């Protein structure tokens, strides 16, 4: 792993889905086993160029997600490397048993891509807002769950995901991410990234919350609190070593996720810490509520997902130190 963090965060020019499709097409060029599936959302997933370039290796299953996952599992048993796409809600809740039995329990080789994480589902509203996708899948043994932070990370992770056998869930923000990493940065699945060091509190963040956590660290430093910021883009397997080391060093922890705090990143970190190094943990995320409709900015405020919310949680965590 070798990572360079941007000094100034800006919204990336390219949508994540464009990077996703481009890289998958590059991989497909050399790995003829790569196939892609969609469920009548190819226009949203951004997979049209793939479909055009590899018509026989692209299967639009129609609005039939459970069938799609089963078909992907079957193709993987024939040696193919399937990537199946739909909204995060339907990629998880709707097909949980198909992922469980046909893919994971059967120990096959399947990648599920769920787009529009959490409040990024915005105008599609509560029915389409995955705030539990990671929690649903985290309880399935051996699954690998990642949430790529920006397109630089996505570009680096995809070849690894394509190459290594397993059942993966990729939580993909299809819009323009805040660019956190300099091009050329390299990542390792299962290893968090230390973005900033500090001795008073650790902010573990994922997805759109990573940029917020960095911003929160700035707010905290103005108040004399030194925050360590870690990008935990792999939710499972958890990076036990880095989580424990950070807790030992800072003695207080905040988790930051665009997801329900129940069963998600907060859960993963807390489970690790109670076993290894119990310190105060505050969880920034959706507090066990259903999603709702509205612009993403409004929803970030509605569910207290902004940098100021993280900073406030950090102060609470620090205060709770014995």
């Amino acid at each position, binding site marked *: 792993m070798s990572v360079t963090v941007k000094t100034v965060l800006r919204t990336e020019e390219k949508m994540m889905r464009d990077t996703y499709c481009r890289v998958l097409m590059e991989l497909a060029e050399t790995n003829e086993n790569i196939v892609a599936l969609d469920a*009548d*959302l*190819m226009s949203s997933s951004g997979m049209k160029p793939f479909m055009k370039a590899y018509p026989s290796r692209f299967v639009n299953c*129609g*609005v039939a997600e*459970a069938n799609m996952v089963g078909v992907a599992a079957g193709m993987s048993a024939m040696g193919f490397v399937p990537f199946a796409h739909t909204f995060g809600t339907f990629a998880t809740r709707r097909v949980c048993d198909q992922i469980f039995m046909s893919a994971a329990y059967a120990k096959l080789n399947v990648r599920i891509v769920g787009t529009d994480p959490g409040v990024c589902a915005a105008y599609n*509203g509560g*029915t389409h807002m995955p705030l539990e996708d990671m929690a649903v899948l985290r309880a399935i043994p051996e699954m690998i769950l990642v949430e790529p932070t920006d397109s630089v990370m996505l570009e680096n992770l995809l070849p690894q995901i394509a190459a290594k056998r397993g059942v993966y869930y990729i939580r993909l923000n299809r819009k323009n991410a805040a660019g956190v990493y300099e091009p050329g940065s390299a990542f390792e699945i299962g290893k968090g990234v230390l973005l900033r060091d500090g001795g008073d509190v650790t902010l573990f963040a994922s997805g759109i919350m990573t940029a917020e956590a960095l911003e929160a660290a700035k707010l905290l430093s103005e108040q004399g609190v030194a925050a360590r910021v870690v990008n935990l883009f792999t939710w499972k397997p958890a990076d036990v070593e880095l989580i424990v080391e950070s807790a030992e060093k800072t003695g207080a922890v905040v988790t930051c996720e665009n997801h329900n705090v129940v069963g998600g990143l907060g859960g993963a970190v807390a489970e690790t810490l109670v076993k290894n190094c119990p310190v105060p943990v505050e969880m920034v995320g959706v507090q066990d509520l259903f999603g709702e*409709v*509205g612009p993403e900015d409004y929803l970030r405020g509605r569910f207290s997902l902004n940098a100021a919310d993280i900073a406030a949680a950090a102060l609470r965590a620090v205060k709770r130190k014995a």
Partner: protein
Amino acid sequence: MNNQNLPLRAAELRLETLRVFEARGFGHVGGAMSVVETLAVLYNGVMRVDPERPDWPERDRLVCSKGHAGPAVYAALAARGYFAKSLLKTLNRPGTTLPSHCDMNRTPGVDMTTGSLGQGVSTAVGLALGQKLRGFDARTYLIVGDGECDEGQVWEGLMLAAHKKLDNLIVFCDKNGQQLDGYVKDVLDTGDLAAKFASFGFFTQSVNGHDTAAIENAALAAVKEGAASHRPSMIVLNTKKGYGCTFAEDQEFNHHIAFTEEQMNGALAAARDKIAALAPAAGEVTA
């Protein structure tokens, strides 16, 4: 038969539905436009409902399983008096009671929460079964999309409905031939839907889904046939996605679209012209 001018009601509903989208600049225009005539028929005489009592247990229910057609449903509910028309422009705004997909806990008159395709079929079967168990003389109406028919759950629900002889279930399949990624025949060809529904035990009729008289007659025939043969009914609506919306009609990709003010103004003008053509001239006595 009722004495409403149904073509006029439908034209008014199309205008109101366009206006729901107008303020936002984008939305699920195509699939809302294709069900306008059906909603106009349902809420102007066919469905036994009372806007004063949206929770009346013995009312007829509507499940719009293609929940993304919410904006058309909201326009129909407002026209029927469930809430003020002024609310329509709050679609998808922070704290709105009118989210993009139908939500029974937010919108008076919405009988079932939908949005995840396929699920509305099962909940409609549950409602119809419940109405029977309660001994109510009430019906459940259900709208499904043809793309939605890709979902296995649709067929699980239909099979159970026929098996349980749910003659109080009347389903409309909005066969506009398009889904999200393009034409149904290209994405996942559903084949002869009417034949499939019939083979699942449904009394099946096919009508022009933009002809209010044809829809109304089919609904009446469904009720009659249900009583005679104890079968659930399927009315296949031959429709056009984006029908009557100048910038959406005849486009391959018109599912969720953004539009300019100019485009919307053109569509609104066309909708108003249609109303003017159908409205009785001044002084003319209406039935």
